[in-house]
Structure formats: structure tokens, C-alpha cells
């Protein structure tokens, strides 16, 4: 049985799964959808009070939380919606200046 990691842009049509079925859960981790992002949020660690209000607001689970503390963004999946910027009470998340 083909695993999701084995489905890639090199496989022939004969090797595709029937109806494009995927036979395992949690496969979104394999797909880097962060490239859809046009603007990028930046975490200002020195301003952050670790209230962790941003994490549940993130629609794409792109703010990893470990031992009750947030870590840096998962930019492989962050779409740059900016909801976290609005949610943060301490201005600890800002738009990254684009070059």
C-alpha cells in the first residue's frame, strides 16, 4: 500500500492510488503549504509574555506550543493570515518587513 510520502510528482498514473485515496491520517505535515503565504508574521520574543493567546487563534496550527510555551512559527504551514497579530495583546507579533 502506497504511503502518502511515496505519492510525489514523479510517480506514473499506474501507480496512483485508486481515486487518489490516502491511507493514513495526519498527512498535511508532509505538504509544505507555507509557500502560499504573501506576508509573513514575525514573533518578537522580547515582547512576548507567553500568554499563548495566539496559538488557539491560529487557523492552521502553525504556532507550536511546548510545555505551555509557544515556540517560533511553523513557516512550512503558516499562510500569513495575520490573525495572530490581531490576537496578541502585547504587540509581540508584527508583519515582517519585506525586502
Amino acid at each position: 500500500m502506497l504511503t502518502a510520502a511515496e505519492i510525489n510528482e514523479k510517480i506514473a498514473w499506474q501507480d496512483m492510488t485508486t481515486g487518489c485515496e490516502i491511507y493514513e491520517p495526519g498527512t498535511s505535515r508532509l505538504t509544505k503549504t507555507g509557500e502560499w503565504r504573501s506576508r509573513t508574521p514575525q514573533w518578537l520574543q522580547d515582547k512576548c509574555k507567553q500568554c499563548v493567546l495566539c496559538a488557539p487563534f491560529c487557523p492552521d496550527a502553525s504556532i507550536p506550543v511546548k510545555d505551555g510555551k509557544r515556540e517560533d512559527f511553523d513557516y512550512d504551514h503558516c499562510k500569513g493570515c495575520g490573525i495572530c497579530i490581531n490576537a496578541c495583546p502585547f504587540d509581540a507579533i508584527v508583519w515582517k518587513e519585506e525586502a
Partner: protein
Amino acid sequence: MSIRERLSGNEAIATAMRQINPDVFAMFPITPSTEIPQYYAQYVADGRVDTEFITVESEHSSLSACLGAEAAGVRAVTATSSAGLSFMNEVLYVAASSRLPIVLAVACRALTGPININHDYSDSMAERDSGFIQIYGENNQEVYDNYLQAHRIAEHPDVRLPLMICEDGFITSHAIENIELEDDEAVKKFVGGYHPENYLLKKENPLAVGPYGVSNYYMEARVAQAQAMKNAKKVILDVAADFEKTFGRKYGFFEEYKMEDAELAMVIMGSSAGTAKAAVDKLRAEGVKAGLIKIRVFRPFPGEELAKALKGVKALAVMDKSEGFSACGGPLFAETAGACINMPDRPLMVDIVFGLGGRDFTVEAALSVYDRLKNIAATGEAGELYTHMGQRER
């Protein structure tokens, strides 16, 4: 042992469904298919089946419910007609591309407009590219027999495609005819159980169905789906062969009626073929080499086999019971002409659109078609290619 009965086409389909006892029937009524869920509701109420009978709010929903049920790993069926089938359009494509073998009974009826409840193939022909297998019956017996073969074709691992069992609205769906039914146990044994390899509720490997397919995957997915439709040809013949061995009635992609030495022929579908056969009999008695081919399987279209069967025919009328508005012929004509394109001595062909919205088709009308073919064969001139028959004219 077969059981002699007399049933309408709708009751014959409902009977076949009862014998198969599918896990889910999601229903929404529309004329002339309404009797199918109506009969089935009675079987549910009487405890003769243990099907989950879901009454939903539209045809889009009934097919969506079937799609969900099939993805979850069970057999799901429904029935519809006309605008109901059109309303399913979006979901038909999802079901076919997700390779979910739903069996859909269609009592074929005209599409609006003008609004009309009678028979033609406007509805099913509009869905010919949806990816559903389509099998048509001439009468109640064929519709019942086709239904008994449907699940095995659709669910075969080399196929895994949804399938439409098409009957002619009112003409077949409501007319009561003699029929040979098969014993409940024999049907259950023939059809067998449904054991998909993977399904949503399989705890060992939870399944994702219907993922997004970007340009890098879409083409491959469509080629694989096209291959499944090609594979269906062998499976349809295999199941028909087992059906003949089990119940004694023979089926193929199409029926060849007096075609051995035929020079004048029709390609036709459904109940109209019965009328045209009477015309062929009359002409044969007069020594005219007339014959007809009745298409049973429209998807997959048996192009190669049809071209072979038409060898030796001098003039051919393709009888389209739906209007494609292509300005150059109906859908059956397009398929037939395409099938014959590389034949060395292909027949001269004309398309005749007839019987729309329940307009009567008579033996006399069929005879007039063969008269036209006689003239084409004699002169070697096909004349006007795309024509209509049976309308009032000034």
C-alpha cells in the same frame, strides 16, 4: 427456479434492490422514478430489508449521502429522473472520480424545456461524460437483469466506478409486463457481499477521500479513471457470462437483431428497439435485408465491437432519443460515427432525432426509416445527415 410475475419497471428495480438489500438507500422523489423509493419504503416498513433508508432534501443530497456511505465502506443506492439527475451533476463527478461504486437507477425523462415528464434520454445523455457506467434496458426483464449485474460490475477492483441502470420513463417504469424473477437466495448468492479493501471507518488505516489534486496530479488521476472505464468492458462481459450460466438469460454490450447479412440497419436504444424489431420482422418477411443493433452499454461505449457488428451494412440510421443541440447530430450518432471512423467500407450514415418528450414511435415510423435507408443504399447518397422525425411540419 425463476418465478413468473408481472411487474412495472420501477417495481422490478425495487424488487432487485430488496433482494440485494443494500446498506443505504438515500431517497428524494421525482417523476417517474418516485415509485422505486416508494416500493422500497414499504419493504423497510415491513421489515423485509435492513437498509438505512434516508429521506433527504434534494437529489444533490441523496447522491451526497450515497457518496458518504460508500466512502464509509457500505453499499449505497438511489434513484432519480430528469431534473433530479441534473441536480446530482456535481456529485456524479465526485463519486466517479473518488471511484465509489454507487448504483443509481434512472427512469429516463426529458429535461426542461418546455417542462415535460415523459420519456427521452435528455437526462442520462447529459451525464454521459460524468464517469458513470451506463446500462440501458429495453423492457422490465432487461432492467431487472441489468440491476442484478450492476453491483458486481461497479464494485469490481479493476473498475470501482459508479453505475447507472437506465430504464425508459413511463414506457418501462410504469408499464406492467410479464417478468421472470429470480429466487431471493439465488440473487444474494449471485450478487455477493460487499467487502471494499479500504474505507473511512477501517481503524487500521483511516482513509482520506477526495483530496485536492493540483496540476501535477490531476492528469494522472484522470488517466487512471479512464483506464477503469476501459477495464469495465471485460468485467461487464464476465458478469454477463456468469449471469447467463446462473439464470440463463444472455447479455452483451449490445443486441444484434437479424444483423447476420443486414444491409440496412439502425442503431437504437431502449424500448424503441422493441418497436423497431417489429418493423425488421415485417421487412424480413418481404425479403429486405434489414436489421438493428440495440445498445445496452453506452458507457463504456463498445466502439470496436460495434464497428465489427456493422461490417457489411450499406446504410445506417442512428436513432437519437435526445437532442444534443450540436447542430450536427445527437450523442449516439457522434459515438457511432466515431466508432466507424477507421472501418474500410463503413456504411453511409444518417442521424435521426426522434421521440423527444414522449413523442410516440410507431412501427410505421420505423418502416419509414428503413425506406429512407433503402434509398440511401440504392443511390449511394446519404443526403441530409442530421434530421428529426415525428414533428409536425408545414
